[in-house]
């Protein structure tokens, strides 16, 4: 009997319907989970992310790569080509070698990171750049000069946030503390933040 009365009241006053409307109202007021991705916002991946390769230099500005070709040997897909040459000092030591050609075919590469592991001088490291789309096949091969440019995302920045796209696009190096951040997975009580 009580159930029947309850049902009648629910039906007559459209209570279920109002409940549904309140649910959507709650979502209306909640924050959007969509990024304005290419124009305004960009997602900075986590530290462990493996993207486009970068060649690094030491503090003096000298390339770390000594063209030992270990990365070529380690590469499971043969996507790296290294041609060594002597540098301008004329000496013959291992430190005097530089890469004449260091190119990587980003379409072949499977981003396993073996080259990173094999590199004795930590010259090649996989950065967090993931915007690899290009309009012709030439764009899929990264030459040494392109790989030597510095990534806008500092190496040891922890990531996992959304930043303004212009920092990435215009390659502006800004200290991570100053980046206007939007936490991707907001830490909820009871759930430890993923790192």
């Amino acid at each position: 009997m009580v159930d029947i009365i309850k049902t009648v009241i629910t039906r007559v006053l459209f209570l279920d319907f109002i409940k549904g409307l309140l649910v959507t109202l709650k979502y209306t007021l909640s924050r959007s989970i969509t990024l304005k991705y290419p124009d305004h916002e960009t997602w900075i991946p986590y530290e462990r992310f493996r993207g486009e390769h970068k060649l690094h230099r030491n503090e003096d500005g000298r390339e770390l790569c000594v063209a030992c070709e270990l990365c070529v040997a380690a590469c499971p897909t043969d996507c790296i080509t290294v041609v060594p040459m002597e540098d301008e000092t004329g000496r013959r030591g291992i430190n005097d070698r530089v890469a004449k050609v260091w190119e990587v075919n980003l379409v072949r590469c499977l981003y396993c990171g073996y080259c990173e592991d094999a590199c004795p001088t930590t010259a090649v490291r996989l950065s967090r750049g993931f915007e690899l789309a290009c309009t012709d096949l030439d764009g899929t091969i990264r030459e040494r000069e392109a790989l030597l440019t510095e990534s806008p995302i500092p190496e040891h920045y922890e990531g996992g946030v959304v930043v303004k796209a212009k920092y990435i696009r215009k390659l502006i190096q800004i200290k991570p503390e100053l980046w206007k951040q939007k936490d991707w997975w907001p830490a909820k009580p009871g759930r430890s933040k993923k790192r």
Partner: protein
Amino acid sequence: MPSIDTLIVVGVMLLKVLIIGGALFCAPLPLTWIERKLAGRIQQRLGPHRVGPFGLLQPLADMIKMFVKEDIVPAKADSFLFKLAPILAMAPIFAIFVVVPFGPDITIPFIDYKVSLYITDMNVGIIFVLAISGLAVYGLIFGGWASNSKYAMLGGMRSTAQMISYEVAMSFAAVGVVMMSGSLSLVDIVTSQSGGFLNWNILYLPVGPLWFVIFLIAGLAEMNRIPFDMPEDEGSLAAGYHVEYSAMRFAFLSLAEYVAMVSIAVLLVVFFLGGWDNPLGSLIPILDYVPPVFWFMGKVGAFIYFFMWLRFTIPRYRYDQLMTIGWKIMIPLSLANILATGMIKIYADYRITDVLEMVGLKLW
């Protein structure tokens, strides 16, 4: 040769027609933007945001796209009727606004000329509205038939049957409004509800809220919106009567749907929510300086928002459920309600303010 006064009257009327017609033609542009933005918010997306600031130019971009797309007339279609149908769907809904009062008479300062904020005040206004809105089915039925496609034709038939069924309930609800307000003219209906929200027809207890709900549901079905949007049901009959339409003709059909939404919101406001009436009466003196048109537009806007909110909240009814609701619930309910309204009108014609006054409470 007509006198100069006649010319002025005709000129002012033409001006009003132009303003209202132009506003209605442009209304879908912001409305589509709002609807898409709201859909985005509800689904935790962003909605359009790339064209212009906040995506405000998106409707214009869509319009340009619609203009330049190829206008396809199917082979063996009845070309004349196919081209006529979007206009037939659109014209009646625009014609409804001929009798809608947007506000009380205003006097233009300096020249001291009195202008009424409606095109004409018919003494059969409410029947005119129902009759004219009934003509909108021809757009559907001719559009469906002329496409020379089985899907379109069956969809057109289905939508027509839906609109005719709910027109009955809607007319009954209009009869209820006429009984509550005691007039067929829309201006009189609004003035009969003046003086704060307690005088509105929706609070003509106990029958007012029921009439409101019946009119609301029937109106939703009349304008083919969720939860009764059979023409947009892609799952069955490949969406209905406008399958074969493209480009500008399709744009006209959706324009008609948006204007229908505005018209139902306007009718709800005029019939049940006191039109341009200030909700708080003269309780708060400062509100008297707000122009009445503002209240009208605010209420209409609230209803439009409600319709959009509804669209992204509840699912679509099946066709047989729709017909069951129309014939087996709405029509008996409205018949019983007509009887109840008549009894109340004869034996206890009190609005809430009257009752309050009787117990010594006078709010305003």
